[in-house]
């Protein structure tokens, strides 16, 4: 691998990211999958980087999953998106920051569509006004939350307590990145580093001291595919895609998978367990799985946040082997306790996959 070659390519894909004053749009599914991730993002931005971020409780799904599953029409999606923009406008913000990659894709596509077809934008303005009485401005800047973390990666690494370095051997941890498909595939210039060799996550991991591994199926979709996951009988599609990735990355012995999409970390995490139960196959070291973190969880962990405060107990593949390698101290007894110290129940220990 010629790293200089990638750096030259990255010069062609630098995007403008606003410095401050962000209107944050949460994902509709991440809060169930990995509930600490968005909280950690807000904490890092507000408390560490002292940025102004507005987290609006009135905002809804962007309809991305329903849209991609053919449940709602594009017109509906655009009107819902217009409402999100109206909420942003009403609060006096111009910089829109979605947490979800599918939302980011939806917003990017709609903004592009309106730019080329102002008559569609006019129609949506009319529909939104008729339905809600709201008006809106199109965001001046649209950036995914991983873009913001990437922008401030050096500041975050500067404040960090840990590095992605094996504390026992001193060797960099081996990280594979997985970028959500809708981040840059439709519009490579909207992604940091482009669509084929994005550096939004690899750049972050390298800033934390990791060695990023490029493996043959890196670019492949995790298999979420919306309707393929929504219908139980179709889930074989989804798991087969993830399996192909695991088979491809396993020879590199990764210590960690990092992601920037709501669906990908959930599937890359859970499918490892399901594959172990269906076929007895595991992909990590010593019969364990490969831990999967979102970029916010990773940043929070590096900052020294308590792993159980940022929700790492919600991961199917236990993160403890990773925490041990990094040197993060944690209380095993607190893993399944809430903020008040009450136990909320422990999961059943899986049969096939080793948890520590």
């Amino acid at each position, binding site marked *: *691998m*010629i790293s200089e*070659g*990638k750096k*030259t*390519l990255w010069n062609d894909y630098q995007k403008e990211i606003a410095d401050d004053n962000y209107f944050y749009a949460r994902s509709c599914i991440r809060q169930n999958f990995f509930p600490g991730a968005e909280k950690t993002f807000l904490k890092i931005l507000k408390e560490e980087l002292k940025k102004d971020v507005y987290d609006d409780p009135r905002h809804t799904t962007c309809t991305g999953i329903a849209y991609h599953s053919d449940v709602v029409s594009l017109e509906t999606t655009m009107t819902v998106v217009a409402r999100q923009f109206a909420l942003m406008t009403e609060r006096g913000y111009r910089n829109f920051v979605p947490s979800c990659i599918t939302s980011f894709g939806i917003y990017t596509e709609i903004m592009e569509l309106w730019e080329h077809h102002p008559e569609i934008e006019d129609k949506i303005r009319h529909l939104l006004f008729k339905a809600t009485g709201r008006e809106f401005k199109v965001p001046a800047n649209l950036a995914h939350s991983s873009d913001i973390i990437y922008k401030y990666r050096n500041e975050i690494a500067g404040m960090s307590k840990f590095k992605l370095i094996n504390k026992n051997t001193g060797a960099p941890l081996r990280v594979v990145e997985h970028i959500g498909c809708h981040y840059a595939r439709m519009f490579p210039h909207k992604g940091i580093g*482009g*669509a*084929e*060799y994005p550096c939004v996550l690899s750049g972050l991991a390298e800033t934390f001291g990791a060695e990023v591994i*490029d*493996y*043959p*199926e*890196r*670019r492949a979709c995790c298999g979420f595919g919306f309707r393929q996951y929504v219908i139980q009988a179709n889930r074989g599609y989804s798991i087969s895609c993830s399996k192909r990735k695991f088979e491809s990355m396993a*020879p*590199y012995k990764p210590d960690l998978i990092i992601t920037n999409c709501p669906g990908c970390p959930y599937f890359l995490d859970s499918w490892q367990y399901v594959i172990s139960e269906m076929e007895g196959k595991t992909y990590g070291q010593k019969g364990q799985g490969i831990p999967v973190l979102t970029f916010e969880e990773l940043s929070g962990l590096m900052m020294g946040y308590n792993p159980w405060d940022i929700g790492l107990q919600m991961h199917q593949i236990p993160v403890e082997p990773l925490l041990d390698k990094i040197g993060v101290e944690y209380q095993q007894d607190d893993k399944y306790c809430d903020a008040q110290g009450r136990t909320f129940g422990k999961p059943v220990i899986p049969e096939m996959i080793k948890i520590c």
Partner: protein
Amino acid sequence: MRALKKEVVIIGGGPAGLEAADSLNKLGHAVTILEKEERPGGKLSNWHKLFPDNVSADGILKQMIQKISGDIHLITNAKIRKISHEGKKYSVWFNEGQCIQAEAVLVAVGFDLFNASLKEEYGYGIYDNVITSAELESMFVNQKSLVTATGKTPGRVAFIHCVGSRDEKAGFRHCSSMCCVTGVKQAIEIKKRLPGTDVMMFYMDLRMHGRFYEDLYLEAQEKHHIQFIRGRLSESSENPDSSLLLKADDTLAGSPIKVRADMMVLLLGFVPTDFHKKMGEEFGVEIGSDGFFSPCDSHLDTNSAKTTGIFVAGACTGAKSLEYTLADARSASLKIHEFLLRSPSSNILN
């Protein structure tokens, strides 16, 4: 009829320029060749053997360069700045304020090779073992042994056809028409040098259109057991040992295919040069939708530009083999000669 002696400037000292210079000189004209590089020869200088009959490119080039004598004046390291005309006189400005005047200008600037790094998914400049057809040819020319980045003899080499050709997204819809035969020629050369190396071609259509090209195809299959897989390379990635994993659709098998290769050779398409655009914008020479020069008439007059006094020859009007480039250069010379004869300022000595 004794020849009139007129001044012609030829822009480009590649095969087309050299051949036209010789023809025009034989027709009695004085010719100045302006060549941007240090040496004449153009792309032919980096060519080992010519398809389809394995003639030495160097031998051909030497014969062509030997003809530069008498009224052929060669100026190398000449960077064209501007072309202007006043009445029937053309002034070609180059370098720092130097100028040559002529009664006709032949543009023979050839082509550029597609910038392979634009096909990001192929990993040129990023993966260790991806090279271009030009780099492979240069290895042959310089008698370098073909080895991987780690110095090993490759167990398998994969050739990728149509890199920068038939690819609208990469900016070029046209077929470069010469890459198929170049690839097959190069593949055979590898097999001759490294008989134990497996060679595969990933192609969409094999356009072996020239005389005896099909014979090369048969030789590749029959003698060298080179494999042809019909499917454009979708993407490549690097394996842990820095070999490559190629993904394509094996369209004739009806399934996707994954193949490991130790090296990948990208068969680069012919694309217009920067000079094409400059001539188009600054001097009104017509450019076709493919970016190459469009002559006056696509059948009856393929060497005159629509701008009077400007002529075009060789691969600057679209990809051509050496054989056709030289024929085109001779054809352009005749057109120029006719033009100079007709020119009212002609001082014909009977």
